[in-house]
């Protein structure tokens, strides 16, 4: 399908808002590029980049006005689709029993602007987990089914990125409605837009945009290809599933347990971690009860808690569970890896535990005689 050129994202915002969509995309807040509801293209982080390291994130000023020359931020799209807190139902006592209400307001019709290829794959993985089996999560499905996805190919990978190793980027794979590539001329951005679906085509048709010149399309491809050579990290091991299965007794787990705080940050920033718990609450009168679904984590002390105690009661067994599921048994359960190479768990770990370094060490231990 033909690519278009957008010299300005203002008309795109107008078209999306005109269609009744809530536009969510990157913007600067509290010293980071977060994802939030945007009112216009002016809210985009024009001229901002980031510096990343294990346990460290800093904004930096760029010399140009690029809006998408930054890598994964503190959140993924997970908080918008797979919300941290969802009320499942509430009940009120009646004269001879109780009445259950499950009414929930219609979910917003989202347009996600600036979905990175790694995060696009992460959404596909959560689709598989939360909608692809026998049981669908209705809250997730309601938000997901109406969402329009505008991906942005990566031309500026970060120091902690390794999407190439995981096969998820820097070129967006399937699943987008529209994919943009940002080109900079004298510091000012313009965009090559490629169409992924009919819904995407309909949005672009309203913009009265010009067809992209073949030379610009080639340049966009070349810049994304070049980005693949500038990944800050690499995930070793050709077959992570086998490595994980063969490493359960590795001494490296003791080493990482000395550093891990079991604070759960890695699971909450991970765009594919999906675990939830369910809790029932009652009010003081005892006449009103609510059931809530909340984000959970395999690092929560209550996770795996059965009669008699927790199945995994050490930091070592917790971290091993998280990593071997993410990279190993996820294949058995869902037919793919659970890691997309976004690097968030490296950056937002308060003590800088680096998933690629841990796998490196496990590989080295497996290779040693």
């Amino acid at each position: 399908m033909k690519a278009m050129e957008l010299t300005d994202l203002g008309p795109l915002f107008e078209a999306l808002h005109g269609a009744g969509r809530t536009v969510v995309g990157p913007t600067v807040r509290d010293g980071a590029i977060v994802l939030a509801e945007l009112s216009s293209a002016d809210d985009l982080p024009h001229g901002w980049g980031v510096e990343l390291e294990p346990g460290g994130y800093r904004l930096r000023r760029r010399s140009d006005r690029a809006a998408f020359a930054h890598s994964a931020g503190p959140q993924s799209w997970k908080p918008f689709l797979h919300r941290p807190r969802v009320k499942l139902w509430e009940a009120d006592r009646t004269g001879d029993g109780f009445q259950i209400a499950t009414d929930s307001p219609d979910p917003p019709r989202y347009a996600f602007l600036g979905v990175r290829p790694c995060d696009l794959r992460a959404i596909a993985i959560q689709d598989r987990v939360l909608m692809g089996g026998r049981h669908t999560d209705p809250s997730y499905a309601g938000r997901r089914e109406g969402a329009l996805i505008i991906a942005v190919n990566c031309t500026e990978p970060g120091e902690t990125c390794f999407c190439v190793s995981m096969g998820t980027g820097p070129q967006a794979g399937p699943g987008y409605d529209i994919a943009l590539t940002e080109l900079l001329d004298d510091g000012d951005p313009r965009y090559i837009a490629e169409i992924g679906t009919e819904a995407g085509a309909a949005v672009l048709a309203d913009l009265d945009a010009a067809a992209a010149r073949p030379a610009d399309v080639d340049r966009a491809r070349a810049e994304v290809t070049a980005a693949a050579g500038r990944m800050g990290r690499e995930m070793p091991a050709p077959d992570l599933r086998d490595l994980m299965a063969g490493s359960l007794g590795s001494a490296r787990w003791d080493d990482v347990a000395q550093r891990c705080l079991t604070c759960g940050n890695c699971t909450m920033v991970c765009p594919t971690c999906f675990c939830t718990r369910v809790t029932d609450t009652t009010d003081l009168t005892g006449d009103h009860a609510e059931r809530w679904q909340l984000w959970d984590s395999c690092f929560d002390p209550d996770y795996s808690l059965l009669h008699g105690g927790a199945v995994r009661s050490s930091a070592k067994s917790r971290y091993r569970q998280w990593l071997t599921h993410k990279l190993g048994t996820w294949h058995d359960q869902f037919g793919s890896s659970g890691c997309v190479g976004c690097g968030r768990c490296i950056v937002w770990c308060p003590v800088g535990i680096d998933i690629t370094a841990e796998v490196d060490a496990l590989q080295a231990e497996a290779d040693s005689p």
Partner: protein
Amino acid sequence: MAPTLAVWKFASCDGCQLTLLDCEDELLALAGRVEIAHFLEASGAVGEGPYDVSLVEGSITTPADLDRIRHVRAVSRTLITIGACATAGGVQALRNFADVREFASVVYARPEYIATLAESTPIAAHVPVDFELHGCPIDRRQLLEVLSAHLTGRRPDVPAHSVCFECKSRGNVCVMVAHGTPCLGPVTHAGCGAICPAYGRGCYGCFGPSPAWDGARPNTRALLPWLDMTEDETRRVLSTFNVAAFREAAVPEGPGDDAPA
């Protein structure tokens, strides 16, 4: 007949029991469900025991406290401790790491009149406790959750995980990673709703250490090098309302369920 509620004070500032009066919107509903029989901050009228539920604030610091807490236990069907003093000894447990007789000799003209113990200890060190609610002060919503759960006969939803769980659920940007602000959130018990990070401040550890794997303690030692603080600053940040609990927490974790071969 409505169950009776009693509120007791030991060595403390009264802030936690005042959290009960701070439940303005829910106070009438609470008074409709329980008979507040003993609550000196609210009324001098004291109903007779025994009591169905006792909320106990404060730590044990005097020989008289030792007798009185046994009496409170004896007249309470359910005993719930509230706040850092009652659950961890409070800021007054700084004496546990010093000589309290020397303090008394400096502060009081006639120190021989002062009857005090060498250590400030939590209630659970002396009598069986049915539930511990952490915080300095405790959180209003959590207090209502504990009381509602008790009245309904269910487990209160008071998770023991770190403040980071609440912080990330709230959508805060991590002040430690993004701003370099020292924060005790990763090793601190949740419950406050991550108030300080929501306003750009690091966590002070008001709710005490978390998690506690089957009696083991959080990995505080692994966090300290990342706080970018001097040794003296580190000692001081761990020496506040939960000083005794955090000092314990600096002991490395045991092997847990999966000891190295």
